[in-house]
């Protein structure tokens, strides 16, 4: 069995991924403290850090969205149902018996069909929920100027923000684990760091 190496993740993509990972972890840490699940920084610092991290992430996203559209990489998230069953079967049985990975990565199809679905869910569901609720949260004092004071309540804005945060936490746990479920335990992680993935021929 021979392997070849392909360059999957470009430099900006890797920078985006890891800085976003750090920010999201930090925002979960500070955000759940603001929500009152534990006490770490103290409420005031947790709030301030969360706000700073939010603005930083917004800035990062401006660049990331620009990058996705200018490079056409957004197409990586177009969902497909092809081979979803094969992927599921692999995770449920094949992975235990060292069966071959049913998906072959290429530079134009870097995500397996389950990944596509999962990331699309993050992009189309969790992120909008977290960003829209977070945006309202952040601009609480402008509701009146925007004519929204009668329609929004902090309670519901916070509720949806927390719902999205829990979804993000669950995604985060699964994502970290599935990062070890590539062709080898470390192949995905290596690729995310170096950009190069070993592909089985």
């Amino acid at each position: 069995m021979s392997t070849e190496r392909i360059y999957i993740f470009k430099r900006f993509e890797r920078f985006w991924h890891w800085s976003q990972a750090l920010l999201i972890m930090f925002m979960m840490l500070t955000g759940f403290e603001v929500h009152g699940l534990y006490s770490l920084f103290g409420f005031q610092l947790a709030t301030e850090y969360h706000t700073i991290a939010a603005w930083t992430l917004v800035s990062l996203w401006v660049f990331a969205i620009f990058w996705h559209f200018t490079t056409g990489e957004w197409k990586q998230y177009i969902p497909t149902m092809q081979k979803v069953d094969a992927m599921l079967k692999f995770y449920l049985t094949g992975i235990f018996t060292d069966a071959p990975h049913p998906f072959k990565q290429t530079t134009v199809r870097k995500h397996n069909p389950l990944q596509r679905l999962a990331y699309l869910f993050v992009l189309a569901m969790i992120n909008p929920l977290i960003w829209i609720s977070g945006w309202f949260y952040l601009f609480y004092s402008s509701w009146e100027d925007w004519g929204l004071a009668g329609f929004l309540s902090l309670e519901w804005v916070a509720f949806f923000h927390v719902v999205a945060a829990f979804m993000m936490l669950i995604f985060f746990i699964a994502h970290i684990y599935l990062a070890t479920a590539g062709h080898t335990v470390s192949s995905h992680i290596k690729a995310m760091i170096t950009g190069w993935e070993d592909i089985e021929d």
Partner: protein
Amino acid sequence: MSLINKTDWSLAMLLVASLGFVGLIQTIEVQAATDSTGATTEKKNTNSTADHSKFKELDVNFKTGPEVTKACISCHTEAAKQLHATKHWKWDYINPDTKQRLGKHNVVNNYCTSVPSNYKFCSACHIGYGWEDNKFDFTAEEKVDCLVCHDTTGKYKKLPGLAGHPNYKTMEWPPHSGKFRPPTDLKQVAQNIGKTSRATCGACHFRGGGGDAVKHGDLDSSLTNPKKHLDVHMDAQGLNFTCSNCHTSDNHEVAGSRYQPTANDTKGHLIPGSQDKRNTATCVACHGNAPHKDDLSKMNEHTGKLACQVCHIPAYARGNKHTKMSWDWSTAGKMDEQGKPVKVRGSDGKVKYDSKKGGFTHDRYVIPEYQWFNGEVKWTLPDDTFDPNEVVKINDFLGSPDDGKSRVWPTKVFRGKQMYDKVNNKLVITSLSDDKESALWKNFDYDKAVKFGMDYVGKEFSGEVGFVKTEMSWPITHMVAPKEDAIDCGQCHKENGRLASVEGLYIPGANNTPLLDKLGLGVAFLTLMGVLIHGAIRYFMFKRGG
């Protein structure tokens, strides 16, 4: 604060630098430490263009207060007329919004309860001379007491029992103390007249309820010469505000009244020269509605719901003096073995029982009770009936989270148990001090005392005295702490925090969504278990296979 700001700033820089571009970060201002050593002691006001000690009108050996007043108004021709129009003079005020007839003379409170029939004592805090019964001439110009507000010597005192006069003869004071006050040197006081001060306003307002610190909780004699930690504005070594810096006056009517409070000032900064007849004694009038400069933690966003005082007055009675917290009139009249009235002191050194007045409790450094308040106060006046099985709210602070004009206010809630007409279910006027035959403090007979009081004001009385539980709310708005001592976020943003009992607030961090939290953490936990088990099986199979 500056330490925290620096931490924020460095963290922000770290994140930004590591990402290689600048995020949209709100400006943080690192404030220079204020120099608190600039020692300026309270100086006598010398910037006046008139030295009253040079006036021949005042170079007179005055015998009485009204004689001094005549001298004053011989130059200040309109002064007495101005004062005649004020609440300080009339003790009678109709709230223009609620139409309720208020003022000291008309309301019944749950301290010494009522003014009529007790004038000689109560009028020690009236800005007039000789209000000793219901025949006082409110049009007499010479009866206005200029000195009580404009004294700068500290030697002018109106004593309870003298109907608003200072002592003109040597007098034992306090009663039975063996100490004697010399006659008031009216000439010296008159020649040293000046602006009002914390001491002159405090002569009455620090001593409301019958003694230092008793009534308000946020006003007591510790404010005469306060340190910065007690009151950031009045700090005698610093800003050195007097009461009148905020409570400005117009024709001698002083701004800021509990009878028509401003609970939510939405008008922003007061512009000098503005013709708007607004209350100047609000935080907002100077600080505006968005006063926090370093606002990453969203403090300005609190101003729509919370009065500034909620965070900036962490406790009341912070001047180490005990304020009265409750008063039970129903136990008054118990005597010692010799049949003499007694005073019993508690471990705090404060009188906890007085035969004349009943039982008390006191406290200091008290955390306020917080309530929605829109500025409207519904008084239970002597003509109003109530259900005696419920606590009577003598001055009910109205407000709600949804009316769009309320804010949460810190309040001192003073709890009493006091005389009422058991049959008519009304508050009563009680003769306490003046009348020899009926006064409670002389005869300890409630039936007589209340009958006399009610007859005195011509109100119907069934003859049966009962005791009803009452509450009064006092807005906490003085003793503003320096910003370093404002309550920190975590005091409210936690489970069972300071505002836990205030309805209609969403407070992040106060355990708001317990079900969602259980569900979210539960699914996250199951996910974690799932991947761990999956991983364990992989590892196990790999070992066996390998």
